[in-house]
């Protein structure tokens, strides 16, 4: 009898372990999706690069001008889970990602899976990038291949248990990696759809402007309502039209802010948003107007801070 119970427990335990192993497995893109990846156009990729804000984390901290194109990594993101260090994503074939195939790059951006089949931590905002079109992802890779190769690997992440176990991210992704749109917009409204794509996809605005739960997943019910800064000091503002947000800003005010860095009452952009705003200033005016139209259309929520 006792042996039977023991066997039962062992079998159940093994089943749970096996199920856990299956559930936590990294899931790269399907072979059909990979086979359908188009060839990238570096010229188009430049806009994607700015929209995605790649340099804000992967260039040297404080870099300006041409130095923003040297993507050697090294920026430290101190979070409640430990310190993440932005890796080298320059075109260096050894220390950067210059040797990556199209499939490697697409799996990283759209599935959060590395070339050797491991999960990436969502400090790399693939939860947003997963909403990007394969065409934009390939254009981005083509553009980044033309940027300078910088030698030298950035230090490894410094994370506490259990966050240092990458495999566990499989469960986190099941709960949090969902490329479905966050906000329903009027079908066929090209401006709103473009704005939604930029904000929810490459722009990854929600990664800072939306509060997170205890395990670092976005609180989808409070989309863009403002949050404690995910790293370091300060607060990230509510960018919906709700109380404490930007309801008093017109769409033109939002577009002007993204272009110049000045709020309607002529306070200036500050902190980490400076780099974001400077990227937004490099987009076509129509893209800033689309972002503004989308932000005016998102559900108005009270301050999430």
């Amino acid at each position, binding site marked *: 009898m006792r042996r039977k119970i023991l066997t039962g427990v062992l079998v159940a335990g093994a089943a749970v372990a096996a199920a856990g192993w299956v559930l936590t497995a990294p899931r790269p893109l399907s072979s059909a999706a990979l086979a359908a990846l188009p060839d990238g156009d570096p010229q188009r990729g430049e806009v994607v690069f700015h929209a995605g804000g790649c340099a804000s984390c992967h260039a040297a901290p404080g870099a300006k001008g041409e130095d923003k194109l040297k993507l050697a990594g090294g920026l430290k993101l101190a979070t409640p889970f430990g310190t993440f260090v932005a890796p080298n994503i320059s075109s260096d074939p050894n220390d950067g990602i210059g040797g990556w195939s199209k499939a490697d790059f697409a799996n990283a951006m759209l599935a959060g899976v590395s070339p050797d089949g491991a999960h990436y931590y969502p400090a790399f905002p693939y939860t947003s990038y997963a909403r990007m079109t394969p065409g934009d992802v390939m254009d981005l890779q083509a553009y980044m291949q033309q940027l300078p190769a910088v030698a030298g690997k950035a230090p490894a992440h410094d994370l506490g248990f259990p966050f240092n176990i990458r495999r566990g991210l499989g469960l986190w992704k099941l709960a949090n990696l969902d490329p479905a749109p966050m906000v329903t917009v009027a079908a066929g409204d090209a401006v709103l759809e473009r704005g939604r794509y930029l904000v929810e996809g490459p722009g990854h605005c929600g990664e800072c402007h939306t509060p997170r739960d205890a395990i670092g997943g976005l609180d989808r019910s409070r989309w863009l309502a403002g949050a404690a*800064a995910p790293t370091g*000091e*300060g*607060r*990230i*503002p509510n960018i919906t039209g709700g109380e404490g947000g930007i309801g008093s800003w017109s769409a033109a005010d939002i577009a*002007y802010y993204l272009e*110049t*860095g*000045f709020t309607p*009452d*002529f*306070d*200036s*952009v*500050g*902190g980490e*948003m*400076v*780099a974001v*705003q400077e990227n937004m200033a490099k987009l076509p005016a129509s893209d800033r107007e689309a972002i503004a139209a989308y932000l005016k259309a998102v559900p108005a929520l009270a301050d999430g801070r």
Partner: protein
Amino acid sequence: MKKFVLAAAAVLFVMPAVQAADDPVATRKAIMQSVAASAGLSGGMMKGEIAYSPAAGKAAIASLNAAALSFGAFFPAGSEAAPGTTASPKIWEDSAGFAAALAKFSAATGAAAQASGKDGPADVDALKAAVGPILASCKSCHEVYRVQK
């Protein structure tokens, strides 16, 4: 009588300074609000939302210049943790860097004051040329030395 007026004027000028020393946080906030108002006036004229006048341009630039020259005096040690301040601790950790950022601000306002002359910038383009570098210095200082709250 004249002496009395002079003395009264002197008191009026001294009084705010005494209050400022007592409450550096309130003072630096008031200065920064005058900067925002002047930037708003300049920006409104640059955007065409406010009709341009050289006198208004001159007033904005003069106010920005006075702010740039005085602002840095209101960050004494001990005022970094004041309630409601959005000043970053980096102001005190990296005082040389903060001084350099202030120098950039006052260099831009000084040049603008020089360019605006007795009557103020003649037209909107002249205003843009004078105020543009000042506005650029807002962002570079706020990127590092202000905390979002």
